[in-house]
């Protein structure tokens, strides 16, 4: 009987592994093309010069990022090179301050602090932080908060002061804005479209 022979299962193990690795390799080639900056699902870094929204797409049956008119960050449009440098700095900041061990990005990380996938689009910046920080724009309010979170306590759980410089805080804001424009298959569902104070 074949099934009682270890060699039969050894052949099964080798062939199933080989087939799956080939399929994964092919899907990886396609996926990497889709998720490169400027690919179908991930916008170019210069998207930070534009307005970004998150709306329900009835055809796709899920929420999707919507890229709108010009809306430069901190009032100044950046070119492709500047945008990439800014976003690179933002990522280095995320890693150097260990953000992922409190927050999540695309739902990955730790669960002690809010998910940051669409944080740029959070209505709380407008409703709470702009009045608190007396800033005129969302990006300025976020920078003020990130540099001195202890000055703007909102809920009982506070963010620590991680000694961000203004340059680092601005880079992080750029990163959050860019990330909010990534097509994430509808995650998180109806972000920013429901008021929870019921």
């Amino acid at each position, binding site marked *: 009987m074949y099934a009682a022979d270890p060699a039969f*299962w050894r052949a099964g193990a080798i062939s*199933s592994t080989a087939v799956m690795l080939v399929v994964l390799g092919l899907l990886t080639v396609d996926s990497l093309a889709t998720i490169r900056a400027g690919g*179908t699902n991930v916008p170019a870094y210069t998207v930070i010069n534009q307005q970004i929204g998150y709306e329900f797409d009835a055809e796709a049956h899920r929420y999707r990022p919507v890229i709108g008119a010009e809306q430069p960050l901190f009032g100044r449009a950046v070119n492709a090179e500047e945008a990439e440098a800014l976003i690179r700095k933002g990522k280095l900041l995320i890693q150097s*301050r*260990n953000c992922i*061990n*409190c927050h999540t990005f695309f739902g990955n990380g730790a669960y002690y602090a809010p998910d940051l996938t669409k944080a740029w689009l959070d*209505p709380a910046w407008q409703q709470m932080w702009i009045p608190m920080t007396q800033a005129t724009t969302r990006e300025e309010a976020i920078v003020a908060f990130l540099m001195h979170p202890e000055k703007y306590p909102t809920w009982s759980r506070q963010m620590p002061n991680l000694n961000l410089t203004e340059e680092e805080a601005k880079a992080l804001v750029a990163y959050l804005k860019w*990330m909010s424009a990534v097509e994430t298959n509808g995650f998180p569902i109806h972000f920013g479209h429901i008021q929870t104070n019921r």
Partner: protein
Amino acid sequence: MFRSQQLALKYFAAAVTLFGIMVIAGLLSATYYLQDGFLLNKLDFSVAKMLHIDTMIIWLLMGFIGAVYWFLPIELERETEGIKLAELMFWIFCVAVAVVAAVFIFVQYGPATQTTLWLINQGRKYVEAPRWAAIGVVLVVLVFMYNVVVTAVKAKRITGIMAVLMVDLVPLFALYLIAFPAITNMSEDLYWWWWLVHLWVEATWEILIGCIMALALMQLLGTSRRIVETWLYIEVALVLGTGILGLGHHYFWIGTPSYWLAIGGFFSALEPLPLLGMVVHAVYDAGTHRMKTTNKPAFYWMMAEAFGNFLGAGVFGFMMTLPQINLFTHGTQWTVSHGHFAFWGAYACGVLAVIYLALQKSRNLLQVQGTAWKWSFALLNIGMVGMVGALLVSGIAQAFYERAMGGSTLQAFMEAQRNPWFVQGMVMRLVFGFVFAAGYAVLVYDLLTLGKRRLAEKALGARVMGGPA
């Protein structure tokens, strides 16, 4: 005893020590949820949580490496090649872990530069260790590979288990290299990071523990090589056949194409199959031997491994993995519940089984006896199941209130965190965390005194009987 086995005992001692640090860091991490402002700006949640997760990875890895150094001379009937180098690497490994832990606790973070990633923290979950330390891990694994492969070649004895083990060491090494780059694009970064995390934890490690369990079963129950090797091949076929594309369940929401929703969902649904196979295997073997063994703790931990792997990794994983459900459960305490149960069942129980086996041999015990192991087994497992249940309650509340109803905003997150069901779950998690910690304390007592305690009891008995002290 071979030097390789003496080295294994050192690895086990280091592993159990790190297990303890993991427990302390876990209790600390649980406390932050219940006391606002706890150690704020002194030792933030991120540091405690990082210590908790990283010590878990390292103690399990040390347990695996120790287990292989233990079984290698038995399987190949000779001393491990390059054992001096292996011994040196052990001490380098320990010093590196201690330095990294000290840097995490006392330095914590640095400016947004590459230097921070090289010297302080890489800030990527599970692989936070700075690059210099990651290079150390690469060297340890390279020497480990050298030991295994050269010993097998010189022994001219490539058994089925050895062949699987040697092939498995290649991805164990290669995938770890993903720990180094700092890719700017988060979607690409997470794409490769999941290769490291998923293909290590849900594929490479599963095969590694499969090899270790196969060797352990032969030693513990005298199961025939033909049977364990057949099961090992079946496990490899099913784990890799389902797990490689099961990777797709991590590609639902990171910017990757939507076809991953179907692929990831389908293959994830199949992932419990090999784990169910392991349960069948374990129950079959136990029945064949009528539960008779000279090492009950090892036997019970091995059974806990089979059932825990199936329930924790398989059932609890499947429960939240289909994209229609994962849209709401992803990134909540539901995931934490699954994570605790899975790592415990799939790996920790197996490492503890091997440690008991090794101690029986190293201390020349005909029979492993006593009641301490029963207490530690019960307390650890009750503690773990309690934590898993409590986290599930919190996770369900979070999935409903934050994700489904609140839309995952900052406000929705905080409201869910204050929800009474969420808070009650967190309280119970800490309570069962202390039960687990008590189990750990009894485990350490048992491991330290196993065999020696019996001699002391005998000596005491002799004194009572009027014999020489």
